[in-house]
């Protein structure tokens, strides 16, 4: 397990609470503001997930798609997002783990080996690839490369997946597993606790890996319900929505801070 994630889950366990993982698209709306947003998020979240935007994403709702397009317009690319994370991590001077979330094309085009190395040198702790397939040659290479350098490879499982698929996914997954709570797009529906319970049971049956739940978690009450079942909860659209509605607002980071502070109140087990 990646050391920073190990510490995050251990500390949360000791404090009898769950962990909050916040997502924002890197360089949305621009490099400078995004840096402030990520620093603010690191003060409140157990881990921070940074999106490398992709203009042909197949799993994101309009909120995240708009953020992707804003980031691309501001010049976002893989190289700059690595630089952004490296700078943020050196400024925050703590061990809050940072993950990259993206699609396979940006990783594949960058070169898988080079991408993995760059994760290490930029202090990235983990990687999530939405459209990575367990049977693809890229997934096999990526999983191998990340393992060598102890960067977490966080894989997704969905309510439509059966136990065989979950078992296959668990073989490649490291540090924690991402449970998609419903069949739909990011942030488009309410979290589905029935699904979460069902998939968590299947995961627990086969592994002790920590479980993070995402999709449809926006409020303190959502966080509180999810944390009763899982180890961590991922909040994305809620944060990105604040960015989208407050691009020119000087209080943008403050607004994100108070939103996250409130969510944290739901983390107690």
């Amino acid at each position: 397990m990646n050391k920073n994630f190990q510490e995050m889950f251990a500390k949360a366990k000791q404090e009898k609470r769950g962990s909050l993982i916040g997502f924002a698209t890197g360089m949305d709306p621009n490099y400078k503001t995004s840096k402030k947003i990520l620093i603010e998020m690191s003060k409140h979240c157990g881990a921070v997930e940074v999106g490398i935007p992709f203009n042909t994403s197949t799993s994101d709702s309009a909120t995240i798609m708009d953020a992707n397009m804003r980031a691309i317009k501001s010049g976002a690319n893989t190289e700059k997002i690595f630089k952004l994370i490296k700078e943020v991590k050196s400024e925050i001077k703590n061990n809050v783990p940072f993950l990259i979330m993206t699609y396979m094309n940006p990783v594949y085009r960058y070169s898988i080996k080079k991408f993995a190395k760059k994760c290490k040198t930029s202090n990235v702790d983990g990687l999530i690839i939405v459209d990575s397939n367990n049977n693809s040659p890229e997934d096999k290479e990526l999983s191998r490369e990340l393992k060598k350098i102890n960067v977490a490879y966080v894989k997704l499982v969905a309510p439509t997946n059966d136990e065989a698929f979950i078992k296959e996914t668990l073989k490649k997954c490291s540090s924690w597993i991402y449970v998609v709570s419903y069949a739909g797009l990011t942030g488009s529906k309410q979290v589905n606790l029935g699904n979460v319970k069902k998939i968590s049971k299947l995961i627990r049956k086969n592994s002790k890996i920590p479980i993070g739940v995402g999709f449809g978690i926006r409020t303190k009450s959502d966080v509180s319900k999810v944390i009763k079942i899982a180890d961590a909860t991922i909040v994305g659209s809620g944060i990105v929505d604040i960015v989208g509605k407050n691009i020119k607002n000087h209080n943008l980071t403050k607004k994100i801070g108070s939103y996250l502070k409130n969510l944290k109140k739901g983390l107690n087990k």
Partner: protein
Amino acid sequence: MKIPPFKEINPPNKNGYWINHKTKETYGGQYISPLLIPNLQKVEKCFEKAINDKKFMRELEEKLLTFIGVNTPILRSTELENLIGGQKKVGKIYLKRTDLHHDSSHKPVNSFSSCYMAKHIFKAKKIICETGASMHSRSVAAACAMLKMDCEVHIGAVDAEKVSLNKDISELYGAKIVVVNESTKSLLPAMASALRSWQSNPDAMYVVGSVAGPSPYPRMVRTWASVIGRIAKQQFKQMTGKVPSTLFCVCGGGSNLMSMAYPLLKDKTEIFAVESGGEGIHTGRHGATILGGSKMGILLGFKSKVVMKSAQIAESLTEASGLDFAAVGPEVAYLNDIGRIKFRSTTDIEAKKTFLMCCEKLGIVPAIEACYVINAALKEIKKRKNPRENHLIHLCGSGESNVARMIKFKRENE
């Protein structure tokens, strides 16, 4: 009439990849959210069941013959031969008239087959599809009307305006139209939008219009569509005693190319695919993938040749909505890389002039997409100067929905 049976001659491996054994490059695959993996497995299972179910295939083929009218003629065009020197200099030119299908393009063969499978084997109540020139949506919507299924069409905002007639016909057939305002507002974001919608409606079936998308779609679409090429090959042999010397098809994603080329892959026919050169490939404003500086990339569930800017999918620009796609299907990219298919391009202006020529000299209103291939074919055939050759061009659609833009072009240039 009996449709010649399908023979698998270039199958992908069990994970949906075509492999170039010389370079070890892989094409295809299934790059998609895990949410859709069970659905794709179900589509694949249903497809295998369908093609091995004799009763299903017999009923489907009867519908293809009687509802779609798949036995369209091959027309010898002395008019085209005469434009470039006559038969004695360039050989004989033939046009495969899939513009005469029900709903006026090559698309209904795959669309109807996929919907028929969705209804009887997948047991879906709703179909989701994307569309560019709306030929696909029009034929999916017609199939859904006939088969009593709901239909949801995703179309880019630019295309919705360009080909409004086909879009309106889709709506008349009862389809719900979702206009996509993202990114290039064309076929690519429409397909991404359809895939996103499928994730929210896993009980529906997604019907892809090109030989693209995650496995099993590239193989399934070309297998259904190859009915066209199987019939054409048989017709051509009956007419000339042999297979064509050359085959010319236009290529956006590659569905009409593969519909004709697939049954000829193991024959001696030289196969040419024609891309849209837009305003000229050198300008960067074009719809050409293979000739337009593509690299291997991963998008919309598959790995293939893609035109990109950095890691983002580039904008493709062309008059023809059906060719407005920054990638080609994985099997097409593979066949190009192993040298089985050669690529040529035609600019928008050349295609528009060819449109007017076809109206005036052939008495045919072709889809603008078909004009790219007719233009490139005439250039290539003229260059070959071989009177012993028989050339086959795929006239893949009718141009009613292009009329408004073309009459404007004609009047502006008179």
